[in-house]
């Protein structure tokens, strides 16, 4: 016998969590884009999506956020550090690839200097993940040694029952258990079996790709130029990626007051690495795409022992010119034969 959360009881849960002071967030459709956002009622959730267009990264590392406010006075400069708005949250209905993406970035934001912005939000969030029973052609979690029911980064894993009736509840962490205590009486015991998981076909041999990437001879391979010839450097792949974490720091304001902001940036942009002198270490789009692939599958794992990719496939799904990690690693798989 396992605990079950029935779909028709979800609104009660949302009410319960809200009265317990939690902001309830989940997958929703908003103005032609699907994303994770705060809701008032369970009816706003859209669980029919394979994956929202935008990842849950936005909830932990917003596209733009203030770091400090400054006021320049005659004799002094007043500064006010801005920490993210505080408050516990429950993210209901994350996908396993999104949840694991946050866990992948923890060591990056935590090495040496601990990023308060990231960890405050991480510590205040309960991630309730729903295992996938649907996948599309772009999903590639299995190629990254993950699965439609991976638990990495999740506090609770829900397995859908057949016919959208509800979910089997697996409590994974104390934080998850705490959040589900508030709805303990809403959960029911049942012997219903979960619906079959999505079948995600393996698209490339990761080990072979990594071996090819680690061979220094391949750094100057013609392959990089060929694969990235059609890249227009729009950076959609990096913005939608749950694990891409590069940012810029910019001041916005008038002469006397303003805000220093942390904004997403991207290794796809030519200006990203451009020196003042005009020298640019990564001056071509192929060098920039190579950097992105090498960083995710060679450099990042070398430092933090985990690939910087959770297999969500957004880079390929949303790419305006049909290239992404999947296409690149599929090609590398054939090169490394």
């Amino acid at each position, binding site marked *: 016998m396992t605990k079950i959360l029935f779909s028709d009881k979800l609104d009660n849960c949302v009410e319960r969590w809200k009265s317990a002071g939690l902001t309830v967030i989940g997958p929703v459709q908003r103005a032609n884009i699907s994303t994770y956002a705060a809701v008032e009622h369970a009816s706003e959730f859209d669980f029919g999506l394979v994956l929202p267009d935008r990842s849950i990264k936005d909830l932990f590392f917003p596209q733009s956020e203030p770091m400090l406010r400054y006021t320049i006075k005659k004799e*002094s400069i007043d500064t006010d550090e801005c920490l993210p708005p505080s408050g516990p949250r429950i993210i209901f209905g994350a996908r396993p690839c999104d949840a694991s993406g946050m866990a992948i970035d923890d060591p990056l934001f935590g090495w040496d200097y601990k*990023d308060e912005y990231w960890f405050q939000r991480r510590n205040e969030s309960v991630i309730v993940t729903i295992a996938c029973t649907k996948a599309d052609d772009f999903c590639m979690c299995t190629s990254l040694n993950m699965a439609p029911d991976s638990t990495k980064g999740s506090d609770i894993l829900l397995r859908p029952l057949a016919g959208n009736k509800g979910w089997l509840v697996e409590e994974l962490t104390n934080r998850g258990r705490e959040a589900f205590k508030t709805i303990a009486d809403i959960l029911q015991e049942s012997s219903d079996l979960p619906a079959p998981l999505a079948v995600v076909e393996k698209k490339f041999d990761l080990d072979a790709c990594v071996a090819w990437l680690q061979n220094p001879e391949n750094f100057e391979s013609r392959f990089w130029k060929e694969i990235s010839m059609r890249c227009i450097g729009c950076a959609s792949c990096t913005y939608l990626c749950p694990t891409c974490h590069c940012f810029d720091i910019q001041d916005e304001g008038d002469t006397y007051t303003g805000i220093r902001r942390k904004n997403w*940036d991207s290794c796809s942009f030519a200006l990203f690495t451009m020196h003042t002198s005009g020298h640019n*270490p990564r001056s071509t789009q192929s060098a920039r795409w190579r950097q992105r692939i090498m960083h995710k599958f060679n450099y990042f794992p070398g430092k933090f022992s985990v690939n910087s990719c959770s297999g969500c496939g957004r880079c390929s799904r949303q790419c305006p010119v049909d290239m992404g990690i999947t296409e690149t690693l599929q090609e590398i798989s054939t090169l490394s034969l």
Partner: protein
Amino acid sequence: MKIVARHDEAPGVRTMKLEFQDAADHELFKETYRTGMFGLYGVYGEGESTFCVASPETRKDYIECTFRQSGRVTSALANADIGDLITFRGPYGNRFPIEEFHGKNLLFVSGGIALPPTRSVIWSCLDQRDKFGKVTIVYGARSVADLVYKHELEEWQERSDVDLVLTVDPGGESPDWKNRIGFVPTVLEEAAPSPENCIAVICGPPIMIKFTLISLKKLGFDESNVYTTLENRMKCGLGKCGRCNVGSVYVCKEGPVFTAAEVSLMPASDL
């Protein structure tokens, strides 16, 4: 930090002397700062720029920085007056391990606006001169006007315990120029310092570094005895924002100081 002095080194190149406003910050700087480290200098409303701390680790009552006015932040810094406040974050990064250089001869090779990081090491060593052997400095710029720290170059030229070789690129000489004419790597090869028991510290634009490394190899220098500092674009200085990476190396955390042996392991075309 308060600007307490400033002067122009060359057209568009300025040095500023900065003093801490907070005693605790100053103490922390004194504890942490070693030559080779860098900082982010900023003006609210304009942003921050990364450059080295140009003053040596033997003089920690203040910070000196030298920069070329070329973008938004450096223009704002150049417009700042004596008495104005600017921001400083740092010191960040690793350092030149100068205690490992004790008892050895030192060769400094530098070009143009890259003298400031070299100068920090030079004075850190000259301020404890008896701990090191022969000191040779090879410095060049595009033209006579572009040479920075002109007053210090004169001082080094007059010192009997320093060998200074000055050069300007062909065409950059003035009628009264009495020093060498030629590119730094060529002049270095002519000066032919001995690699015996010698540490080389080289800083310059990427193209100068590339050819200087070749010249040093010809002269017989071992890659592990050659140090350089990589001046990549940075924003956070804390190993997060991603732009200073060369291969798997975060220049802001594992650098900016590397031996030529370490640099040779990095992907050359990403430097």
